[in-house]
């Protein structure tokens, strides 16, 4: 009895010891700033002067009732998230299924090729694509005369939204493919064989056997893609700068503009608390929904 308890305590201590460094780091670099952010969101402060005044919930009220840019940014962010999440997951799943099932020559090469954009910093991706959409498309247009290359991909508000989605999908694909490939590899062969004997074709096998078995991967991938796209900043910052006008201003970019360009730090903090609640709500909802669908092989 006594020994068992001692064992339990030492086990707990060991557990604490191993997690402590991470817990301290997270508290220091995420926890404290988070609470400071909530503190400043209730105050009027320009981010530089030493004094700030308490104004209660006014920042939050202003964000929802008197700030069309912020509302527009929420709209854009939701649209951007919806499009990227759907496109990324469908294309990544499709490509990894094709790569896995076939015995294509150069399987490894394609896997690496799809993954490479993911290891380049988003800032640089933004600059590269800005150049491609601008100078390179212009040159291609002049050489070939194909209409689509002559469009103003970053200068026309609706096209610019599509451009940001396209670049994001291209960039993120590799990472999600990696998770899907791992999921596909974990599907046991015997189940597939049984399905084949039962007379299921390739398509039927994929939808009735493989898909239900890789729901855990889908949960992870949709979770990551939703959270990442709702928080997107770097790519949009360098690719379009939120423009033309505010057509591609995401919530995160709007927060940056408010806090650092308009010098309204308190108001910017309030907006970031709102973004936090938004991301938390949507992702928790998604994870609980998807978890229900998970089954064991």
């Amino acid at each position: 009895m006594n020994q068992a308890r001692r064992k339990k305590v030492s086990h707990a201590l060991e557990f604490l010891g191993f997690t402590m460094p991470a817990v301290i780091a997270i508290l220091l670099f995420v926890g404290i700033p988070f609470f400071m952010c909530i503190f400043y969101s209730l105050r009027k402060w320009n981010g530089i002067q030493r004094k700030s005044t308490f104004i209660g919930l006014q920042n939050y009220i202003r964000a929802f009732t008197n700030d069309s840019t912020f509302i527009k940014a929420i709209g854009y962010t939701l649209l951007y998230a919806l499009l990227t999440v759907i496109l990324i997951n469908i294309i990544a799943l499709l490509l990894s299924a094709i790569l896995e099932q076939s015995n294509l020559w150069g399987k490894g090469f394609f896997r690496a090729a799809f993954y490479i954009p993911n290891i380049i910093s988003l800032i640089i991706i933004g600059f590269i694509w800005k150049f491609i959409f601008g100078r390179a498309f212009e040159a291609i247009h002049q050489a070939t005369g194909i209409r689509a290359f002559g469009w103003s991909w970053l200068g026309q508000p609706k096209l610019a939204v599509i451009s940001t989605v396209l670049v994001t999908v291209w960039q993120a694909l590799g990472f999600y493919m990696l998770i899907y490939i791992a999921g596909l590899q974990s599907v046991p062969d015997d189940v597939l064989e049984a399905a084949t004997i039962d007379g299921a074709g390739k398509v039927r096998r994929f939808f009735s056997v493989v898909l239900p078995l890789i729901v855990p991967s889908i949960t992870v991938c949709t979770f990551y893609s939703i959270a990442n796209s709702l928080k997107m900043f770097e790519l949009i910052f360098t690719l379009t700068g939120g423009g033309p006008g505010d057509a591609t201003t995401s919530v995160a970019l709007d927060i940056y503009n408010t806090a650092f360009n308009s010098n309204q730090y308190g108001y910017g903090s309030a907006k970031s608390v709102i973004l936090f609640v938004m991301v938390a709500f949507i992702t928790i909802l998604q994870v609980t929904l998807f978890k229900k669908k998970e089954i064991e092989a």
Partner: protein
Amino acid sequence: MKKLIALSLCAVLLAGTMAGCSRGEKTTNSTASSKSPVTLNFMLNSPELTDQYKAMAAEYKKVAPNVTINMTIIQNDYQTVLKSKLNSGNIPDLFMSSAYNDNKVYQDYTYDLTNESFMKNFNPVFLKSVTLDNKITGYPFLVQSHSFIYNKDLFKKAGITKLPTTLDDYKEVCEKLQAKGIQPFSSGFAEWWVLPQMTYPSMSDAYDGDYNKLFSDIKSGKLKFGDLPQVDFALDLIDLVKKYSGSKPMESTADMQVSDFANGKVAMIHQGSWEEDSIRKINKDIDMGYLEAPRMDGKSVIAVDSNLTMRVSKDSKNLKEVLSFLDWLTTSDYGKSWIPEVVKQISPQKDAASPDTQLAKETAKAVNDGKTCQWWIFCGPDGIEQPFGTAFQNYAAGASRQQTKDNLTKIFVDAYNAES
């Protein structure tokens, strides 16, 4: 094989940490060896002047060998980095900012220079921008100008002899250029700061130049900014520039403006004296000049002001050394000639020599002719530049005139509400 890779990686990482150590030691050693060592931390923007800053610091080292100037020079996110430094108590001894409303923004941190003797060497015109409540809060660093810059050869090629001064003139010029197959403008509309900057000189006749009254009326709600007749004029100007800026006016960035202009692809850009160096780096022999920006009242102008400001930190431990550095920069022979001869821009000091660059000469001429305006927008509330630019970008991308005016009005109301 794997082990080898892992080992070599470890070695590289270790070497990296050690390199970091040794560098840290070196700086402490070198300061420790001199007699009464002082390290001054400067935080500067405008990285295009890096070489010039370094030349100046090296020159000062000759005069005051015990003073080491440690410069941090950045452009992107300068304000953000400065803010986090100020908030974390890691305050540089001297830092740069804009003038006008930044006088107020940074007032908790800046040393009052009013009674320093070297401030008497400045042209009083350029002290206006750094004065807050009759106190001089900063050291005006250099005079900059912006307006439409044009390529003289291309204008000659299109047979344009009379330089444009009104909106109609500009339209005529654009048509003549286009007839010769020359793209008139590169807009710079992708940059939120270029677009409004283009309109400021053309709106400078608002309230006949009484900007204090203008902004106090806006603050009190007596005037809606969008109702200013000058706003309509500015929108007309945006329409014109957009129309003659090729097929993708909304994608033109400042870099593209510079390269298109320097390569002779376009005849005009709206930019400032700070870009002359970049233009010359691409095309050394380009023959360029300023055009005066059109205004409603028919008086065309170039925007000229001293906006870049050096501020001395009030709580600096080395206050004395910083002040004697500024004194040297103002009164010594090298200091006096640094701006005109090394930086090659116009100095805000009295009786300073004129720099030997084309745009600076044209600026000096405009100053003598009285054809200049202040950077008046900075007399307004803090933090409006970016939303202002976004509103104009939205207009250029298709928003309606009324929507844009309402938007501009709201930007000012919000900005004044945010001030405490």
